């Protein structure tokens, strides 16, 4: 399987994603967005960064590039698609998932390690975990506050679309453990299919054993 790590101008976690996937024995390559997805694409990562400089709105420009039509097609066919950080913003903007990620409650960029509670373990992204597990994964974003209408959040929750919530080290989902003010402490969610997910925390930064821990490996194993 080859995972296409789609690189836009301003993407900056593309190399890290390839390195993390390779560490897990998963074949991955950076794909320049203008070149389109390779024919043998069997997984897609939309990596973090500042595509198009975050000008206009984070992810808004990249979501409207031609390659995203191909990504949407892949998603519809059941190919695993993961958006991380800026990739999550792009995914939301492109309609792969509900909601939007916007300016942190602090109005500042925040780079730190946070705890996430695994909300369901029966998806490709979380099969390596048990429901209720607490994992430590870093965040690094200025616009990571998940927002949606209250009724839409209720629908997402009812449909079991929430993948991860920010929590404390003991797994309690509290406001104090919510780093950016996300609605419902949502850190990651599923799209229409379980094979499509977006998340603000960086699993690729919690995969290599020599830096940052290995709690994020489970997410990337969806591509194995």
């Amino acid at each position, binding site marked *: 399987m080859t995972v296409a790590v789609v690189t836009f101008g301003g993407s*900056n976690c593309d190399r890290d994603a390839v390195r993390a996937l390779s560490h897990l024995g998963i074949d991955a390559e950076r794909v320049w967005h203008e070149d389109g997805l390779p024919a043998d694409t069997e997984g897609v990562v939309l990596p973090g960064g500042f595509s*198009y400089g975050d000008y206009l709105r984070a992810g808004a420009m990249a979501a409207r590039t031609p390659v995203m039509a191909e990504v949407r097609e892949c998603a519809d066919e059941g190919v695993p698609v993961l958006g991380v950080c800026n990739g999550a913003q792009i995914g939301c903007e492109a309609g792969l998932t509900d909601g939007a990620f916007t300016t942190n409650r602090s109005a500042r*960029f925040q780079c730190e390690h946070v705890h996430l509670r695994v909300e369901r373990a029966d998806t490709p992204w979380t099969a390596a975990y048990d429901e209720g597990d607490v994992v430590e994964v870093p965040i690094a974003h200025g616009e990571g506050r998940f927002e949606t209408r209250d009724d839409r959040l209720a629908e997402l929750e009812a449909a079991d679309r929430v993948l991860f919530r920010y929590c404390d080290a003991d797994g309690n989902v509290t406001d104090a453990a919510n780093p950016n003010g996300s609605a419902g402490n949502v850190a990651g969610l599923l799209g229409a299919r379980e094979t499509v997910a977006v998340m603000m925390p960086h699993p690729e930064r919690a995969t290599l054993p020599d830096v940052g821990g290995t709690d994020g490996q489970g997410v990337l194993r969806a591509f194995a």
Partner: protein
Amino acid sequence: MPLADADRELVVGELGRDPTRTETALFENLWSEHCAYRSSRPLLSAFDSESDDVVVGPGDDAAVVALDDDTYVTLGVESHNHPSYVDPFDGAATGVGGIVRDTMSMGAYPVGLTDSLYFGDFDREHSRYLFEGVVEGISHYGNAIGVPTVGGSVAFHDGYEGNPLVNVACVGLTTEDRMVTAVAAEPGNELVLVGNATGRDGLGGASFASEDLSEDAETEDRPAVQVGDPYAEKRLIECNEALVDESLVVSARDLGAAGLGGASCELVAKGGLGAQIDLNAVHQREPGMNATEILLAESQERMVYEVRPEDAERVAELADRFDLGCSVIGEVTDGNYVCTFEGDDGDRETVVDAPAAYLADGAPTNDLERVDPVQPERDLPDARVAEAFEAVVGDPNTASKRWVYRQYDHEVGARTAVRPGDDAALLAVREAETGLALSAGAEPRWTAAAPYEGARAVAVENATNLASVGATPLAAVDCLNGGNPEKPEVYGAFAAAVDGLADACSALDVPVVGGNVSLYNDSAAGPVPPTPTLAMVGTRDAADGRGYDAPPTAFAGEGTLLHVGEPGGALGGSAYLAHAGGSDRFPDLPRDPKTVVASLAGVAGLESTLAVHDVSHGGLAVTLAEGVSDDAGADVAVDGSLELFDETPGRAVVETTDPDAVRDAFDGVAPVETLGEATTDGTLSLSVGDAELAYDADAVRERRAVIERELA
């Protein structure tokens, strides 16, 4: 600041005619203090810049040092002081951009940044405005370009009230094959400008940086400050990487101070060559620019490359792929540095025709008067220990900088093995199975009290930081900041600091492979203290022992606490005196710092070592406070305030399960004293002479969180 009469006379003598307006402006900028180091060059010979590992020493865009036979690390440092006063956000942001391009022009990929920041008193509103703006600017730019900001320093001192300092260092990685230099090679090769279009921004930035800040600088000098575009910089980084991948670059230089004129002239001068440049060929952002504006604008995110004629088309294709402008602006020649320009009247004029070497290196140096600084006398205060402890631990200078580094992406690149907040950052360079440790900073209180000894202490402290994560020093770059050198006391103190830094780096056996000098950091509020920011890198072998794992600074709560190193017996320049009043001479520094540092690095690599934290800013008081957490405390006894607040570097607190191993490592090197035991009660219990102090983790955290609390 127009071209001085004496300089004009020299130029007329060299050219045999009056310089054109464009030449006058070019000489004014290239011969400015900022570009030509006229007042500092005589001092810089003090530095030892060679070792077996040094591949490219001072004088290029960045220095290059070998990690092994194939893997090279680049080092550079730059100041962006005056722009950061006038416009803190953009001034600091473009400082990051500039040093990253210096890294790129060596054919390297940037992998780490440090920022050393200096502001006026934290209690003043204007200092906070500058501090917040500078941090936000660095965050905005550094995060977007995907280079982790992994370390640095922040200091507050009233000497920076009218003139903050922003010193940015960058490390990059390259290989023997990929390395590029700024030495033009071959007449007939084309000069290609890649990146942003040129506009009327940052005009005269080099000369603006070479005079005191005036009281109305915030309004008057705003046009001299550039505005950065990190999105363009990121595309330029990737384009540069692609150009190097395909071996299309013969030589390269980034456009910084003095814009295209500076970069292109210095590039060909280094190769002993000249150039023929058509200024109309430069891609421009606005209409009607004249020759001088095109030549000297400091528009950001631009690089000039020397390219073989047959490769120019491919360079243009790659630039286009990354949506970057690209123009062939001329060629390398073996004649003069010549620029032509066709104005609106349709006449083509030669606006510059001068020897490149004379433009780049012809500025005479200044022989300035200096008054040597004198050491303060001992007049120790009679302060209550508890009050002093609380003031020192809660001092914004020694307090937690989490508020700062949390705003920087310090993990992008997936190399950050030790994150900011510990003594030094550690990057995993898997290519060479090497842990690359970084430490950067200076302590204005030390150099204000005793410029020579304080600067030596700065070097020893940075080296000790590296040792705390198990690394031994490899090389350093310096950013030497001072006030107006035409004032003899200011120049005397600056010169003493330069000597001190050079002497200590020699004693540590650390080559100083490059740097930057920033003078005229002076304003109506007075000169800045001499501020010799040092950015030092060290290495540790990741193939054996602990890999990229380093002992933390926080205690585990399970071992014995040892003090290693020789106390300096004085309090000059300390946080303690800053709060309690009084004065003292500067403490004695270790006679053989190299061996102390090597011994500490060895101890940090021991399995039995649970924590290592250097003793410096704020003394043992701060080191111990930083070791305490909810799960671990310390029970420690010291003789008195002198021992608790002495800031002599080259010392550390080591938590160990095998004290004898530490004693063995320091046998004949430096004394090892038992301070007490680490505990599991999360409380710092201190006996200081007759006084008993106790602070739990919350109380310590509360004091250490002063910046976060005030700026939240």
